């Protein structure tokens, strides 16, 4: 599936302040990208799994599932702008033995659909895969579209698996993995031209497993989502300053791979930094903190996360910098904590 990989574009100057707010991308200069990994992986999987069906709530084109809809028009249900309906109807399809992949933006999946997913899907162990576009701060469109709280929201829901991909490779492998897993899943999704980084790290996505992508003596970054890409980039830069950074990628936020996290955090002398594209409330950071305290492991501990407030509208690079999740912000903060 290694077609349509785009080579990185030439280093450009600083983003113009008037960069469009709606165009969502977490691509930094210097990364290769792959087009619509979710849509293509789902089409691939659909070839051998007729029970897989697609759904969207008037956001098919914006969540890459339109590719599946084009490939299998009779297996795709356009639900219109009715997220709550989609969530509950997905539960119904699952009861009839199908595996719906239902897409919308992460904010609407988390905030608008909560009760419908909780009762209509999770409590009944319905085999539905919710796929949320624009996770965390990946659009400058303002709080309505910035899903800064979806991990916290879904972590609080019993019986649902919560995952956050780093890059195109993660997205592709997650599609198969969640289809093979029986039960409700909430998957964050990166769309459009998605960075490809993990293929350099001898990595495979395994549901429920954290993966140590690189070792390091001074700092252990525990990260999820595209913050793992930021952490890997930061680690390369910090290496030049003689700072040795390990990166533990935690794509499954729930259930948490506590064994691996405790093992890595227990190695003495390292600053532990949890990095996530999510509010500081209720996401991976607090999940790891709780795990460490319960496990009797107490390293120096810091969090890189979005502040607990409604974020501004504006251009994405400016906002990611302002709220501390750009590559530069990650490097600056780790340096100042050392």
């Amino acid at each position: 599936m290694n077609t349509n990989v785009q080579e990185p574009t030439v280093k450009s100057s600083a983003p113009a302040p008037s960069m469009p707010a709606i165009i969502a991308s977490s691509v930094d200069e210097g990364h290769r990208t792959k087009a619509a990994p979710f849509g293509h992986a789902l089409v691939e999987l659909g070839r051998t799994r007729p029970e897989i069906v697609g759904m969207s709530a008037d956001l098919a084109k914006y969540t890459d599932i339109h590719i599946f809809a084009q490939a299998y028009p009779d297996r795709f249900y356009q639900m219109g702008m009715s997220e709550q309906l989609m969530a509950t109807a997905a539960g119904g399809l699952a009861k009839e033995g199908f595996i719906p992949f239902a897409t919308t933006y992460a904010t609407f999946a988390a905030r608008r659909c909560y009760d419908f997913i909780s009762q209509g899907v999770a409590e009944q162990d319905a085999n539905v895969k919710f796929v949320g576009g624009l996770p965390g701060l990946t659009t400058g469109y303002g709080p309505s579209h910035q899903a800064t709280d979806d991990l916290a929201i879904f972590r609080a829901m019993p019986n649902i698996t919560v995952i956050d991909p780093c890059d195109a490779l993660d997205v592709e492998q997650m599609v198969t993995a969640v289809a093979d897993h029986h039960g409700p899943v909430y998957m964050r999704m990166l769309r459009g031209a998605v960075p490809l980084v993990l293929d350099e790290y001898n990595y495979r996505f395994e549901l429920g497993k954290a993966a140590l992508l690189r070792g390091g003596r001074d700092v252990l970054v525990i990260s999820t989502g595209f913050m793992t890409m930021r952490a890997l980039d930061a680690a390369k830069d910090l290496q030049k300053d003689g700072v040795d950074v390990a990166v533990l990628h935690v794509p499954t936020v729930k259930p948490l791979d506590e064994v691996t996290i405790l093992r890595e955090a227990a190695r003495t002398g390292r600053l532990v930094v949890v990095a996530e594209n999510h509010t500081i409330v209720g996401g991976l950071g607090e999940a790891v903190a709780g795990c460490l305290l319960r496990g009797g492991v107490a390293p120096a501990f810091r969090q890189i996360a979005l502040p607990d407030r409604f974020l501004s509208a504006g251009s994405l690079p400016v906002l990611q910098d302002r709220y501390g999740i750009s590559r530069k912000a990650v490097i600056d903060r780790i340096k100042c904590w050392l």
Partner: protein
Amino acid sequence: MSEGNLLHNSRLAERAHRVRHNAITMAEVHGQGYVAQALGVADVLSVAYLHAMRIRPDQPEWEDRDRFLLSVGHYGIAHYAILTEAGYLPESELVTYGCDDSRLPMSGMASYTPGAEMSGGSIGLGLPMAVGMGLGLKRKKSSSFVYTLMGDGELAEGPTWEAAISASHYKLDNIIALVDFNKVQADGPSPTIMSTEPLVAKFEAFGFYVQRVDGNDLPALVKAFDNAREHPEPKPRIIICDTKMGCGVDFLEAREKNHFIRLEPDEWKRAYEALEARRPA
């Protein structure tokens, strides 16, 4: 039609033209945007703000104003275009649309913009909020109306229909709902994505006083807004406005994929020229 009315309508046409011009000015900043909606709904908003509504643009929070709730937040560009023409915003601010720290964010939000009364990016909140404000205004014995602008795709959202039931139950005759029926939503033409017809019959069955008009016909809109305000029955009111995406700029009207439009740099000049060619006499 009386001479006074004719004059009024031609002045409205001139101002609606400027509203469209404002929208293109904003879209040009980014080379893209929801400009086709703004052009399509310009006449509806012009009649709302410049004919029907009781407002004081220099006093956006004047207690006795009519309220206007932009439910479709992505229509911010259309809203800023009319707010500028109505005098809430200086024209010079248009070019900050969607930029960092601008008062004109791409998605309309109450806390950012003078004259914006709700944050609507998560669609489907307009009519429910109008119910609350309608109840509140009645409680205060206010004679103000609450207008809310919804999209046709938005009508698939459940809360809209919960609000419709409630608005009629509480006889909220101070609500004037507007639907911009442009037959487009995010994934394509609304009738193929999720058909909401027959819409007049639906809202009538929900207890509304319903009118359906050509939303790009100013005299028809003026009449519909007058009817909505003066209708004697204690029912919520709704005007379904059939509009043309891109109205006023011929090559945008003809464009098929128009929910979110990108234009090449040289096309903006063409857009201004096309608009100018249709400038009302």
